[in-house]
C-alpha cells in the first residue's frame, strides 16, 4: 500500500511537474494563461499511439511525436494567439477554443474510445521488496531529465538569460536588443515540448482519450498558483504536493476518485487563506 502510494505519487509528481513547469514558463515570459497547455499533452499521447501503431519503432516514433506536437503548437500559436496577445480576455478564450479544437480533432480521428499504448519497457524490478514497473521508472526518469535540462537551459545558457530577462521585464529586455517576440515563441515551443514529453511518459500508463486534458489542466493551474505565479521552483513543488495529495486521497478514502480534484483545489484555496500570493510567489505590490 505505502509502496503503491509512493510509486504512483512519484510518477504523477513527475508528470504534473513537467506540465506545470511548461505552463509556468509560458505564463512568466508571455503573460499567456494557456488553457490549451494540457491539450498538447493529450495530442502527444495520440501522436505516439498513431506513430507506434503505424509500424514505426518506438525509438523513432517518440521523437517524431514530440517534434510534431511542438511544431503544431508553434504554428497554432503564431496563427491564433500571437496576433491577439495584448488582450488578456481574448487570449483566454482563444486558448480554450484551441483546446476544444484539439480534443475534437482527436475525437474525430480516433473516436472517443479508450486507447491503450503498449508499454515500451514491460516487466518490473523489485527494489527493497517493492515492485517498480520499468515503465513507471522510465516515466520518472524522463521527468527528471527534462526538469534538469530546463534548469540547465535557463541558468547556464545565453538563451536562458534572455528568457529570464523577458520574464522579469519585457520592455527593458526589448530595449536591450532582445527580440522579445522571438523569445516568447521559443518559450512557447519549450512549453509544448515539455507537455509533449509528459504525454509520452503517461501514454503507456493511463488510457488515452480525448477528454484526458481537462483533469491535468485543473491540477496544473492549481499547482502553478499554489507555488506562486512566476516562480518555477514553486510550480514544481506545487505539482509534487498536489500529486501526492491526489494519490493519497484515491488510495485511502473510499470513493476518493470522485474527490481527487476537489481535494487538490481545497489545498490550493487553503494556502490562499494564509498566503494570497502562493507559497513562493513574490508579495504582490499594488499594481499601477
Amino acid at each position, binding site marked *: 500500500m505505502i509502496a503503491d502510494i509512493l510509486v504512483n505519487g512519484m510518477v504523477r509528481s513527475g508528470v504534473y511537474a513537467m506540465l506545470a513547469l511548461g505552463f509556468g514558463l509560458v505564463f512568466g515570459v508571455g503573460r499567456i494563461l494557456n488553457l490549451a497547455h494540457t491539450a498538447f499533452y493529450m495530442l502527444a499521447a495520440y501522436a505516439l499511439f498513431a506513430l507506434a501503431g503505424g509500424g514505426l519503432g518506438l525509438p523513432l516514433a517518440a521523437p517524431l511525436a514530440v517534434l510534431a506536437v511542438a511544431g503544431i503548437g508553434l504554428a497554432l500559436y503564431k496563427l491564433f494567439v500571437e496576433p491577439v496577445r495584448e488582450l488578456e480576455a481574448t487570449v483566454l478564450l482563444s486558448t480554450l477554443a484551441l483546446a476544444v479544437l484539439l*480534443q475534437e480533432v482527436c*475525437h474525430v480521428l480516433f473516436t472517443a474510445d479508450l486507447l491503450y499504448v503498449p508499454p515500451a519497457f514491460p516487466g518490473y524490478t523489485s527494489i527493497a521488496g517493492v515492485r517498480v514497473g520499468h515503465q513507471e521508472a522510465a516515466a520518472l526518469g524522463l521527468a527528471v531529465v527534462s526538469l534538469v535540462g530546463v534548469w540547465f537551459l535557463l541558468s547556464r545558457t545565453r538563451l536562458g538569460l534572455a528568457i529570464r530577462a523577458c520574464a522579469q521585464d519585457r520592455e527593458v529586455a526589448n530595449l536591450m536588443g532582445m527580440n522579445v517576440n522571438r523569445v516568447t515563441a521559443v518559450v512557447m515551443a519549450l512549453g509544448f515540448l515539455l507537455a509533449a514529453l509528459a504525454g509520452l511518459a503517461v501514454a503507456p500508463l493511463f488510457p488515452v482519450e480525448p477528454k484526458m486534458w*481537462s483533469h491535468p489542466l485543473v491540477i496544473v*493551474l492549481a499547482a502553478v*498558483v499554489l507555488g506562486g*505565479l512566476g516562480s518555477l521552483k514553486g510550480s514544481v513543488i506545487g505539482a509534487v504536493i498536489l500529486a501526492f495529495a491526489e494519490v493519497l486521497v484515491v488510495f485511502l478514502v473510499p470513493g476518493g476518485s470522485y*474527490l481527487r480534484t476537489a481535494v487538490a483545489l481545497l489545498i490550493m484555496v487553503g494556502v490562499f487563506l494564509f498566503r494570497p*500570493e502562493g507559497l513562493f510567489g513574490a508579495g504582490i505590490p499594488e499594481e499601477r
Partner: protein
Amino acid sequence: MFYFRYFLRYLRNEVFVLPSRAVVLAFALALGFLPLITQDPYVLRLVILTALFSLYAASWDLLSGYTGQVSLGHALFFGVGAYTAALLSAHLRLPPYATVPAGAVVATGAGLLVGIPCLRLRRHYLALATLAFPLMLLGLVFMFPGFSGGEGGIWRISRLAPSRVGEYYLIVGVAAALIAALWKVGSSRLGLIFHAIREDEVAVRASGIDAVRYKLLAFALSGLTAGAAGALYAHFTRIAGPSNLDLFMSFQPVIWTIFGGAGTIYGPVAGAFVLYPVLDLLQTAVPKYRMLLFALLILLILRFMPQGVAIWVRDAIERACPGCRVRNARFRRVCRACGASLQP
C-alpha cells in the same frame, strides 16, 4: 396624449439617433412578438435557452468584465441556483414563484461566501481560486448521491407554465427584465465605480470609495442573476444534474461574453444570441463535427475581431466625437451634442 408625444420625442431623440440603440429596440420587439409569428416548439425552446444563457453571460460580465474580478467558476452560482430550486421543487413541492427567488437568494449568499475570501486575491489568483469552488461542490454532489441525486441529478421538477408559449413569455420576460436591470446598473454611478475598480483599484480607494464593499456588491449582484438563470434553467429543462456545475458550464459565460465583447452588457447578449443558435444548427447539420467547427469559428472570428463581435459592429456603425466623446452615427457630418465637425 402628452405622454404619447413625449414618448415619440424620446424615441426620436434618444433611440433613433444611434443605430445601435435602434438595433436593441428592434431586437427586444422581435423577442416579444416571436410567438405570434411562430409557435414551433423547437424555435421557442432555442430562444428560451439562448435568453437564459445570455442572462448567465451578462451576470459573468458584471463581475468580470466590469470590476475585472475574472471568475472561472461561475457555474457555482448557476449550479447552486439550479440545485436549490430543484431540491425545493422536488422534495417540498414548492411552486416555481417560490423556488426561483429562493434559488437566486441562495446563489447571492454563495456569491458573498466566495467573495469574502477572494478579496485578498488579485487577478489570476482570483480566477483560479474561483475555478475551485464549483468543482469542490461537484465532488460533494457525487459523495452524497442520496441527497443530491448524484450522477443522475434531480428529476420531478414542476413546470413553470402549462404551455410552451407561457414558459416563453415567463422566462424571456424575466431574463429581459434582469438584463435590462444589469444594463441600468452598468451605466449608472455604480457601473462607473465598477469600471474604475478594474482600471485602478488604488485610485478608487484614494478617492474615498470603499472598494471592498463594491467588489462584494458585484459578487452578490452577479450571484443573484446567475442563480436566477440557473433556477429557471432547472425548471425549464426539468432536471438539475452535475453538468450544471462542471468545468464546461463555468467556461460557457466566458465564451459568450468574450465572443460578444466584454465590459458591456449587450456584448454577452449578442454573443449568446449569435453563438448558441449556431451551435444548435451545427448539432442538427453535422453532429460529428459540431464542437470542431464551433471552436474553429471562435478562433477565426476572434483572430479578426479581437475585441468581440458586438464591439466590432458598434465601432463600424458609430464613432465617437473627437471633441466631446459622445457617440454618433457613422453617417453624421456634425456631432449631435456639441456641433463639432466629424469630418476627418
